[in-house]
């Protein structure tokens, strides 16, 4: 009997973030995952926008890193979990960094605080001179 043809496992996707164009790739992969998880257009737009902000943060402030985008479930509900990891200088004062308008870069300071409003769960870990890891989940 021929081996069964199985779909490649695309539930976990990793994207390297090293340059500007990679932020666009993260957006596209986040969109793919949102669609696989059955998100509505608005839910998809919010997830993709949060992905863009967080990927840019990893690039601008963390000097690059990677993103892991995966479909997750809890009981009957499905969602997308996104993790953004960099090995940059870290954030000394997370509370301050989360505030709207606070920026050390050339942006508007909406990246962290803004993306938190676009997802259901938001978790940030950072160690000075070790890097930053942001994990977010948006449920359907």
């Amino acid at each position, binding site marked *: 009997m021929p081996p069964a043809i199985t779909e490649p496992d695309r539930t976990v996707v990793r994207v390297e973030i090293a340059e500007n164009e990679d932020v*666009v790739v993260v*957006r596209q992969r986040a*969109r793919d995952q949102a669609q696989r998880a059955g998100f509505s257009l*608005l839910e998809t737009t919010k997830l993709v926008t949060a992905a863009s*902000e967080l990927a840019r943060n990893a690039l601008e402030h963390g000097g690059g890193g990677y993103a892991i985008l995966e479909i997750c479930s809890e009981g009957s509900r499905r969602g997308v979990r996104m993790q953004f990891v960099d090995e940059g200088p870290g954030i000394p004062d997370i509370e301050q960094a989360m505030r709207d308008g606070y920026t050390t870069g050339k942006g508007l300071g*909406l990246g962290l605080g803004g993306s938190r*409003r*676009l997802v259901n769960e938001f978790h940030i870990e950072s160690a000075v001179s070790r890097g930053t890891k942001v994990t977010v989940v948006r449920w359907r």
Partner: protein
Amino acid sequence: MDRVPILRMGRTLLVTVQVDMHDQLAVRLLDDLTAMITKTRARGVLIDISALDMVDSFIGRMIADVAATSRILDAQTVLVGMQPAVAITLVELGMALPGVRTALDVERGMELLDAARDH
């Protein structure tokens, strides 16, 4: 080098953003538009983003910068075609684009520019 094309229609510059812009491309568009306003003595700039399925804080700031810069150069900017899901997300992100005139589609945007010129 990637560029977003800018069309000239009389005294109006028309930009239709059709690609998912990375940051450098957005910055280049702002530079190109500013140069074109001066060179062509344009009085209006119409930016159509109906093909964009996402506007984040960087692209939002670029749009606000185009509007502010063109105003100083005596040209009006009108942003048209934003998808409802994009608008909702942008406001939730914390960016309501104050100071940017908007219209539902290109036709209404043109009317807005024409009206502004007659005053």
